[in-house]
């Protein structure tokens, strides 16, 4: 069961980040040409695979309880930041993420960056930075999820599947994937990261969960209830007109 949830969490997190990276790469490709953008993407993916390849096996040699304590705590802090933003967005206290608006802003910025060249370093740099920084969160999730579960490969499979799905969708659409319910996906990722973080941090701290591994489902249920409860409470209490879109 853990394995299924692990792959699902890695898939969701990777899909969300890759939709954002795709928006940047599309903007670079359309305005500056695909050659340099492609090299930027390839270099970023190479760097990310190197990070996962270096850190994944290193974590496998550490004692599991210490690893889960540290990884669970970091994952919980990281996950709560996602969840906090998702709750604020859903309750109208923070602007929704809008891929179309981001795409338009990227296009404007890239047009200001000078004319096209055969080896366009500006396009390379923007594509590399977009994919690398968005991908770093995915790499972090793969390494932490995989490390705590002693199965980096499984988390990597979930992320690779997301890469293929987003890539195929991007090639077909040839436009930002604005119809992907990105804000809802982020909500889901925040819930998964926080739930795994609670479960592993507590296990690493010496807690015995009632029902052992099955209690992870209970933790996910508690986090879902808490999140939707907070959204409902904040919607009622939010100042009128706060739910604007960027």
């Amino acid at each position: 069961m853990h394995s299924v949830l692990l792959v699902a969490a890695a898939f969701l997190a990777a899909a969300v980040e890759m939709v954002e990276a795709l928006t940047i790469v599309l903007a670079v490709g359309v305005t500056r040409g695909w050659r340099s953008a492609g090299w930027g993407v390839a270099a970023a993916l190479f760097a990310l695979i190197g990070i996962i390849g270096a850190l994944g096996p290193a974590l496998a040699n550490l004692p599991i309880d210490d690893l889960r304590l540290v990884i669970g705590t970091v994952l919980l802090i990281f996950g709560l930041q996602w969840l906090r933003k998702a709750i604020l967005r859903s309750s109208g206290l923070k602007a929704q993420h809008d891929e179309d608006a981001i795409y338009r802003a990227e296009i404007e910025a890239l047009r200001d960056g000078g004319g096209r060249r055969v080896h366009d370093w500006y396009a390379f740099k923007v594509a590399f930075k977009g994919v690398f920084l968005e991908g770093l969160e995915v790499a972090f999730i793969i390494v932490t999820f995989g490390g705590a579960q002693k199965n980096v490969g499984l988390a990597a499979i979930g992320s690779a599947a997301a890469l293929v799905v987003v890539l195929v969708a991007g090639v077909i659409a040839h436009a930002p994937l604005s119809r992907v319910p990105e804000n809802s996906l982020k909500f889901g990722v925040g819930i998964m990261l926080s739930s795994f973080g609670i479960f592993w941090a507590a296990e690493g701290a010496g807690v015995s969960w009632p029902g052992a591994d099955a209690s992870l489902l209970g933790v996910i249920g508690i986090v879902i209830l808490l999140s939707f409860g907070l959204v409902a409470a904040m919607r009622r209490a939010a100042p009128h007109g706060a739910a604007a879109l960027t």
Partner: protein
Amino acid sequence: MKWLSQFGRFWYDFIVGDDWTIAAAVVAVVAVTAAVAHSGHLAWPILPIGVAVVLSASVWRVLRSQRGASAPSAGHGPHADNGGSR
């Protein structure tokens, strides 16, 4: 030196993000959980309850700051914290 501070800033923003009190509170709750678990008492409810309190408090602070901002003059946007990719 500048590179080092940028590197540190990046990781701080990456993991800790907009509200450092969440990180501090999570570390404190995990420490309490470990202490209670090692003393042989029931410890599993501490972390879920702690997370519920920490998250509620953080979201509530944003609401309160927006209420404060919108009270004197209406029309302030929903930007209590910076953007970020998450």
